[in-house]
């Protein structure tokens, strides 16, 4: 157990971080003791990632100080943080998938003999670290051939090989199976017993309940409070994270649903061609799709939208008798998708707000192939007002807008097409709390106007707070459907990890 009277292994005092006009982190102080598992909670945009990047030397703080073993330190780069024993394991793994496990563990620090890489020593030492994380693979295995869960363990072995005393894990379980998650928990507990400190970031409150010695909550870049081991409970964490009554935040009002707008039967996506998916959605209904990363949720949406065309099965809407084969077919049938990565697939970043807003309606409004400037201006004005897009005008390049405003531009582009079915993949990822609330309000407004919404979210609170009905996916199939009254974190996690009940009504 942690000693309470020794100085923290790692401590920050009054750190803040300013990005242009955005205050990402504001006067945060916290410390972590040797052998402690500290969970850092907060919604997207609460400042967790920024804090972790500062701790790991990826970014330097605008204000405040960092202490290691009570000594003031300044990390100019990641190497210096590594030397101080602090190692960050990114959510997206940073492994060279074409190299072997051993080569990855010692990448940049290869032991050398006569100027050449000493492969014997790499293998010997790598085996030692692989044993520490309970990974039974040869150091010569090519990393790309391992499952994501095993790659995660390679990352941890790599961190341990740098003699890390503080491991920062950013949502380590977001793409792991139940079994892999349990293995990881075993490794974390084992490390704790050896005196290694772990800073653990997760949206899965159940995991936090199981692992954490202490919970720290951030909100809007500020330190909100902490919860000690004995008081760590789901409700306490949620109310501290959201900072108000959850039900009010999410406007939970029931929607009256209309006719069926989408019926999917035995649909098979290219990502999981062996697994058929069947469900239906009614007008005015908000359906949340939950599941682990890699469960095939995004692929379901892109298949419904036609960008990764279905490999089998049927899909019916008012005007479509089969699954769409291109995005244009889907859009013409009134189906639109707000993609997971708006910078990659949602926006033409180098173009203006107006050009982005009008992109999907150019064709409908064109005059013999020529652009219709009046229609463009009208769409821009209408959507800017309806969605309260904050910009310096329609001609501003979208690249410089905040995440929330960018997301509104993506939404506006689609609302201009007057969709009947709105697909949203992680609709509030990387946007601040204020914009989040506006997106939620908008989703309810649209549902009220009869638009059907199917959204994917990894945030349990969103599934819980927004859905009229939830579908939980597990390894490419729908593991079960939950009515509004049945949605709970436990029920969702059981289905998501494949330990739940058999499929009910979908």
């Amino acid at each position, binding site marked *: 157990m942690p000693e309470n009277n020794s100085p923290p292994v790692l401590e920050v005092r009054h750190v803040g971080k300013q990005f242009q006009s955005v205050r990402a982190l504001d006067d945060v102080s916290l410390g972590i003791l040797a052998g402690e598992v500290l969970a850092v909670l907060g919604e997207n945009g609460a400042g967790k990632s920024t804090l972790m990047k500062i701790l790991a030397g990826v970014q330097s703080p605008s204000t405040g100080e960092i202490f290691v073993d009570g000594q003031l330190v300044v990390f100019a780069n990641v190497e210096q943080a590594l030397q101080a024993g602090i190692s960050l394991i990114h959510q997206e793994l940073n492994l060279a998938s074409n190299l072997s496990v051993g080569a990855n563990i010692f990448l940049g620090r290869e032991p050398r003999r006569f100027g050449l890489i000493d492969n014997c020593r790499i293998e010997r030492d790598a085996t030692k670290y692989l044993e520490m994380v309970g990974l039974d693979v040869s150091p010569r295995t090519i990393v790309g051939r391992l499952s994501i869960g095993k790659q995660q363990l390679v990352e941890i072995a790599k961190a341990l090989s740098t003699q890390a005393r503080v491991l920062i894990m950013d949502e380590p379980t977001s793409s792991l199976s139940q079994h892999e998650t349990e293995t990881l928990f075993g490794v974390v507990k084992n490390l704790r017993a050896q005196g290694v400190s772990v800073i653990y970031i997760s949206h899965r409150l159940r995991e936090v309940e199981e692992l954490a010695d202490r919970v720290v909550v951030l909100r809007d870049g500020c330190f909100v409070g902490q919860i000690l081991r004995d008081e760590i409970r789901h409700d306490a964490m949620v109310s501290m994270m959201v900072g108000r009554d959850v039900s009010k935040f999410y406007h939970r009002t029931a929607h009256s649903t209309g006719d069926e707008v989408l019926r999917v039967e035995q649909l098979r996506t290219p990502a999981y061609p062996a697994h058929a998916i069947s469900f239906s959605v009614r007008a005015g209904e908000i359906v949340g799709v939950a599941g682990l990363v890699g469960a095939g949720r995004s692929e379901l949406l892109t298949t419904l939208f036609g960008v990764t065309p279905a490999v089998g099965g049927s899909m019916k809407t008012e005007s479509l008798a089969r699954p769409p084969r291109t995005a244009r077919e889907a859009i013409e049938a009134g189906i639109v*998708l707000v993609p997971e990565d708006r910078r990659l697939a949602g926006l033409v970043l180098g173009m203006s707000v107006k050009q982005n807003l009008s*992109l999907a309606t150019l064709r409908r409004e064109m005059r013999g192939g020529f*652009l219709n400037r009046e229609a463009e201006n009208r769409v821009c004005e209408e959507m800017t007002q309806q969605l309260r897009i904050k910009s310096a005008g329609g001609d501003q390049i979208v690249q410089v807008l905040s995440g929330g405003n960018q997301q509104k531009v993506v939404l506006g582009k689609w609302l201009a097409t007057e969709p009947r079915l709105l697909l949203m993949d992680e609709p509030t990822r990387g946007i601040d709390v204020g914009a989040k609330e506006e997106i939620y309000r908008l989703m309810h407004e649209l549902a009220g106007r009869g638009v059907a919404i199917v959204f994917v979210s990894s945030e349990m609170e969103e599934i819980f707070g927004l859905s009229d009905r939830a579908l939980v996916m597990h390894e490419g199939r729908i593991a079960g459907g939950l009515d509004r009254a049945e949605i709970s974190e436990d029920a969702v996690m059981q289905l998501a990890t494949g330990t739940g009940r058999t499929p009910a009504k979908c």
Partner: protein
Amino acid sequence: MTGKEPGADSLLSRISQKLRAGGKVYGILGLLIMICVYTAASTDRFLLSGNIENLVHRTALFGILSIGAAFVIITGGIDLSIGSVVCLVGVLLPFLLTKHDWTVPAAVGAILMISLVIGLVHGLLVTKLRLQPFVVTLCGLLFYRGLARGITNDQSQGFGSGFQELRLIAKGRIPILGDAEGAFQLPATTLVLIVLAIVAAVFLNKTIYGRYLLALGNNPEAARYSGINTDRMVLLAYAICSMLAGVGGMLFVLDINAAQPSDFGNFYELYAIAAAVLGGCSLRGGEGSIIGVVIGSAVMVVLSNTINLVHPNYQNVEFAIIGAVILSGAVVDELVRRWLSARRAGMKVG
């Protein structure tokens, strides 16, 4: 909390928008004027009407190739086969007309069709097979030249003394300033360039397809997710490029009256690409203006003329000088861009 009223400070943002959009064009225009002033000051032969006519004429010919190159570059691709298409077309036109006695419409029609097919093949390989444009068109560069040399047995092709009326399209001079001795006469190729440039500019800036090209060049995924048939647009860009290379190739051979298959059109793709980049096209795609590209071609042509007239001793290093000037332009452009974005980052944004 709501979006700002239109008109309030959108005038300012519109001006800066216009400046940013036009910035590169003004930059390259400035460079052109500087080179012209320098050359005119250094030698009195530069402003002779014969020299100016020649410059305008060559700008028109290279401008046509460069506009084609620009369309492909705007999609984020590249076409290295332009010079070889010029060669293939350049030998085929006299070959079909003189050796095989085809009629003019048949020969021209066949050549335009061949150019179109070449472009479509490039486009299909790039979009459907997802091959890299560099690889596809590099192979095209080798293939079409080999084909041209094979068809003609590596013999120079020309029209002899025939086809004078047809050759007027490329050789003709229009006495717009009267027919006094030594007065400037407008090369007929200029008219071809003006027509093609206007059509291209209208297409790029006023039609939804031009907007689609710019959008997919900037972000192909977002364009596809917006319901744009990106494959078809890319195909179109390669087709436009090869067609314009075909038109250019015919004009070149009609003008020169001799096409040696082993070197006709050599390096022309690089002139075209350089002109497009000078004229404001980003090789990353999504950016470009037709007028800029035409001015870019003029810079290439005038620069070569400057070296010939002012520094004849440096003719051997002509390529080095052209390379250095283009590189300086790219460096200055990048530095200005960074300076602007650093300034923008300092401003408060929503």
